[in-house]
């Protein structure tokens, strides 16, 4: 048992060493840590009250020392709104990705591992869902359920599940075909043990990478849906709806478009960079 644990520790150290060799991935990880810091300490950085205080005399003011990112059409401090908006984006991104991952894993793994009727039933439904572009599916679900945070998360999760099912099924199929699984079966190992002992550990690398990239995608989709008015509703300071506001004042207040947008790009980029680093670090074929 002890031997196994020390071997696991060596694997982690090896993985970490290879991840650190990729400089851009480490930068991504640092940005991620910084964003997490902003999310946790948003209230310390700037009080929430600054997001909602409307100062009539300070409408549409450019960036200054009092307002780092300027003010919006109601005289609200844009810096405070962007900082507190990070909570929405990150929460939605992580929550939808994890939910889609869990549901997708259960369905995809059952389809791949058991095959036959179960596989057919699940995959035919997935085929139907895959025919509708994800953004359309989310739009329709939000229209049916109504626009609020909970429904946005439900809608985005639903549109994200089919792709996950396909990915996880194909990963599980690849692993299940390996000789060591055949060998384990031949000496009578049960399904449960095979799944937890062999299939999951060997399938984890592509799934981790995919989830990281998915979070980045979901942050973009959430902002997009809020932007067309189908996501988080104003006055909540969500990044997408901040940009939706900015659309009206493109000429008078371009900073309203620039600052929230840069935050979306940086956050999404951080997850993509880390995902890229993970791909290389977890791929045994690239081992030096």
């Amino acid at each position: 048992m002890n031997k196994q644990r020390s071997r696991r520790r060596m694997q982690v150290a090896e993985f970490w060493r290879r991840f650190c060799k990729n400089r851009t991935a480490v930068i991504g990880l640092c940005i991620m840590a910084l964003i997490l810091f902003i999310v946790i300490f948003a209230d310390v950085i700037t009080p929430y009250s600054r997001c909602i205080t409307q100062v009539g005399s300070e409408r549409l003011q450019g960036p200054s020392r009092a307002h780092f990112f300027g003010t919006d059409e109601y005289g609200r401090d844009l810096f405070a709104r962007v900082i507190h908006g990070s909570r929405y984006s990150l929460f939605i991104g992580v929550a939808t990705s994890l939910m889609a991952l869990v549901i997708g894993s259960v369905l995809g793994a059952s389809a791949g591992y058991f095959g036959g009727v179960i596989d057919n039933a699940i995959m035919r439904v997935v085929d139907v869902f895959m025919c509708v572009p994800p953004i359309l599916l989310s739009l329709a679900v939000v229209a049916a359920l109504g626009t609020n945070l909970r429904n946005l998360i439900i809608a985005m999760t639903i549109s994200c599940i089919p792709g996950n099912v396909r990915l996880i099924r194909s990963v599980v199929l690849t692993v299940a075909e390996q000789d060591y699984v055949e060998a384990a079966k031949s000496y009578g190992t049960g399904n449960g043990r095979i799944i937890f002992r062999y299939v999951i550990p060997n399938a984890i690398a592509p799934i981790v990478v995919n989830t990281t990239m998915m979070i980045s995608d979901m942050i973009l989709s959430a902002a997009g849906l809020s932007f067309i008015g189908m996501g988080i509703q104003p006055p909540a300071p969500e990044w997408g709806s901040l940009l939706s506001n900015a659309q009206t004042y493109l000429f008078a207040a371009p900073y309203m478009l620039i600052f929230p947008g840069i935050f979306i790009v940086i956050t999404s980029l951080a997850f993509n960079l880390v995902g890229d680093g993970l791909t290389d670090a977890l791929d045994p074929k690239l081992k030096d």
Partner: protein
Amino acid sequence: MQKYILKRILYMLPVLLGVAFLVFAILALTPGDPGSIILGITAKQEDIAALNAQFGYDKPFLIRFFNYIRDLVLHFDLGTSYSRRQPVVNDIIARFPNTLRLALMSMALSAFIGVSLGILSAVRQYTTLDHVLVVVALVFASIPGFWLALMLLMFFSLHLKWLPSFGADTFKHFILPTVTVSLTSAAGLLRLTRASMLETVRQEYIRTARAKGAGEKVIIWRHALRNALIPVITTMGTSFGASLGGAIIAETVFAMPGMGTLLTTAIRQKDVPVVMGATLFLALLFSLVVLVVDILYAFIDPRIRAKYENGGRSRE
């Protein structure tokens, strides 16, 4: 092979029926009935009921679905728009050409940029050029389409006044939306082409080609590229779906009369027949493109063709 194609076409029917049912069911959950949507909630109860009956809305859900499919199959009738009171087919005929043009132009541009830069990046692996291209691609993959659209609009339409900011009348109107949609998907194609090229170069047959003394150019263009592009071509099918999605956003920003703006306004007005018709139409188009790509794929790669002909479970 013909048997396979026929099987795939026949299989599209139940899938599309499934899509119709899915969207119909989601929209049935939407609150509001056509009568009160058209006449407003202040109208008389009898008028609302009469209008509902005219739309067949007084019948239960499954009957309504059955009627919808029957009209669609027998008369190619997608129903009547609640808000404009005219056939949904007219809306689609009027709007679709713009969206198709935008999606096709974006796909062509993104394929050109993505594949050529992807090859370049793979051939020059570990050079500065490669590093820069990979990072730039990641940055573009992280930019929300609508933000890029607005930035381009602000710069090229408002400040430089080179290009129009809304509408779909001339070629100039299509430039900014096309660039918006294609830059994001070109980033994905670049990454995929690069990864696929690097994977191919590591194969045994490339080593064989090197061993027999083939020049680097021949190896890249004759041996590696043809194999490396196979996964790229499959992804083009799905990326057409992404182009359609991207077109929805781009059309909203640039106020283009296309399927995207048709859909978003219909969803906002709870105009169920329009949403149904447009979604089904886009789903049909998308599955046709995926089918064509799959068939092409089998023609290019004999290994795949053999797998199709023998049946068996595919990985995808």
